[in-house]
């Protein structure tokens, strides 16, 4: 990793942290309103974020864009296995209880919400539990995906 790459990574992280705070998506109240269907705000944020992300990824793939350092851009395919369902549900339960997903945990600690340190320690514990039980959990891939071959979203 080059020094330039490290600095740029840090700067984009700072950008994302600022956006998380200013968009209020790190607020427990917003998450609660979303799951009670009281307020369309979170749905509009998530859908517009995906729309912008999707167009961006399409353009990057279409023009085979490279990084500013000239490296090819590789977009990861994520395996489709029972963890998406089981792990996804478990994560969703934690998300609604704490009002935070992993990004907001970091942003909230930075924003001085130090109670989130407890959630962070919990998340590290949960990660360790996954590492411990990984070999006993089902991971059989359901479908092998070709890049860009799906109609998701």
């Amino acid at each position: 990793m080059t020094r330039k790459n490290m600095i740029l990574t840090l700067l984009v992280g700072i950008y994302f942290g600022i956006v998380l705070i200013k968009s209020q998506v790190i607020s427990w109240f917003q998450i609660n309103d979303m799951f009670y269907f009281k307020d369309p705000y979170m749905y509009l944020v998530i859908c517009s974020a995906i729309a912008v992300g999707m167009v961006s990824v399409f353009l990057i793939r279409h023009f085979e864009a490279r990084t500013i350092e000239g490296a090819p851009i590789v977009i990861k395919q994520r395996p489709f296995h029972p963890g998406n369902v089981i792990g996804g549900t478990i994560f969703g339960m934690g998300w609604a209880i704490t009002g935070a997903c992993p990004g907001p945990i970091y942003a909230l600690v930075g924003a001085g919400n130090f109670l989130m340190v407890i959630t962070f320690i919990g998340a590290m514990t949960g990660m360790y539990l996954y590492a411990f039980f990984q070999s006993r959990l089902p991971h059989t891939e359901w479908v092998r995906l070709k890049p860009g071959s799906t109609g998701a979203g």
Partner: protein
Amino acid sequence: MLEWLLEPWPWYVSGPLIGLTVPILLLLTGRNFGISSSLRHLGAACLPNSKLPYLSKNYNWRDHIGSLIFVLGVLIGGFVGNFLLSAEPGSFLPAFYASPLGVVGLFVGGILIGFGTRYAGGCTSGHTIMGISALNVSSLVATIFFFVGGLISTWFVLPLFLP
């Protein structure tokens, strides 16, 4: 202009700016957007003698130092957003969570987040934003179940212990 900056941003500003993280990160650094993998890399860095394959086999956290730099940035961004770019710093949790029961909820919730995101292979960043943008079916499925879990907690678990 400045006053507008200091207020919470409307969805049509926030959403696109969150989505723009995907191409900005790819074009500037070549990184796929995602947060929860940082938990693994931090764990591996803290437990260098672990025998668990997830934290040691064919895997060196130093290859993923960028993930840790990125989340350090998110933490700094949280500070900047709340203390330098807000009219008044906000608190984003109900006061209830400062109680013993609330702390237990935050810890148990954290365990569910850590375990769930690692088993699912991503979180709302890696799956919902990055994965769906890249048209991954697995990410769409994971996102649907994030919402299933969230609805279960909100409607059936939170009412048990929220005052």
